[in-house]
């Protein structure tokens, strides 16, 4: 399998971060607004947010989208 050493390490980390039950990208999208708000107010911690944060660890596409969303929100708040 053509993977680089870094990719194999990433895969091992993904396995570590894997939960028995995970929310998928659609469910993440339903919760991402809540997560973005919580990032501004870090004291908040609910099960829903913890599941969304776990999804982020294993999903690079939702990470990419969250970065873009936070950038937009930051621009808007200026």
């Amino acid at each position, binding site marked *: *399998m*053509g*993977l*680089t*050493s870094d*990719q*194999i*390490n*990433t*895969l*091992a*980390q*993904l*396995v*570590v971060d*894997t939960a*028995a039950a*995970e929310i*998928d*990208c*659609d469910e993440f*999208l*339903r*919760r*991402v*607004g*809540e997560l*973005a*708000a919580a990032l*501004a*107010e870090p004291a908040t911690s609910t099960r*829903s947010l913890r599941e969304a944060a776990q999804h982020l660890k*294993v*999903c*690079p*596409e939702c990470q*990419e*989208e969250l970065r*873009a*969303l936070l*950038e*937009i*929100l930051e*621009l*808007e*708040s200026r």
Partner: protein
Amino acid sequence: MGLSSTPRDRSRIAALAAGDAEAIGALRSRIARGLRAALARRSGICEADIEDFTQDAVTRVLAGLDSFRHESAFDTWAMAVAVRVAFTALRRRRWTPASVDERLESLTRGAWAATPESERARAELHALLHELIATGLTPRQRAALLGELDGVPQVALAERFGVSPGAIYKMTHDARRKLKRLLEARGYDAAAIASVLADGR
């Protein structure tokens, strides 16, 4: 950024649900502005793309009003939907079923990069992962997991396999869970893997 939806959000949602042209127009310009900002640094994106993504996003938001959970500001959720629509379209654009096939072929048949001998613990873990991926996963789980790891978007894998992106997520999740179980059976629990990874960092 508001922490949860407000009474004003609720009245706007009601207006959007009722098809109020002014409310829809305001949503459209807000989304267009956000996407223009988010995509400004990307090459190969023109104003017509922004308009297309905005139109699709407005349609998705209006169709999904019922699924809005009121735990964030409505605008934040609507913008998240717009980002999903635009990024999915851009990911799809970069890949054809043929290029996905080509990539998967080289990922599943190519050789692993060699781990330096100085990193013996890692080399052992890498060799074990290689073995478990080759013997413990179904061909589709293997292709989805390696493809995703190599940056092939879920939407492109989904099109190639004729399933939904959600089904690809489930395949990779099943694959990760299986690997976790198989690694545990070989003495690598999460803490052991984490310590191998932390070593030499």
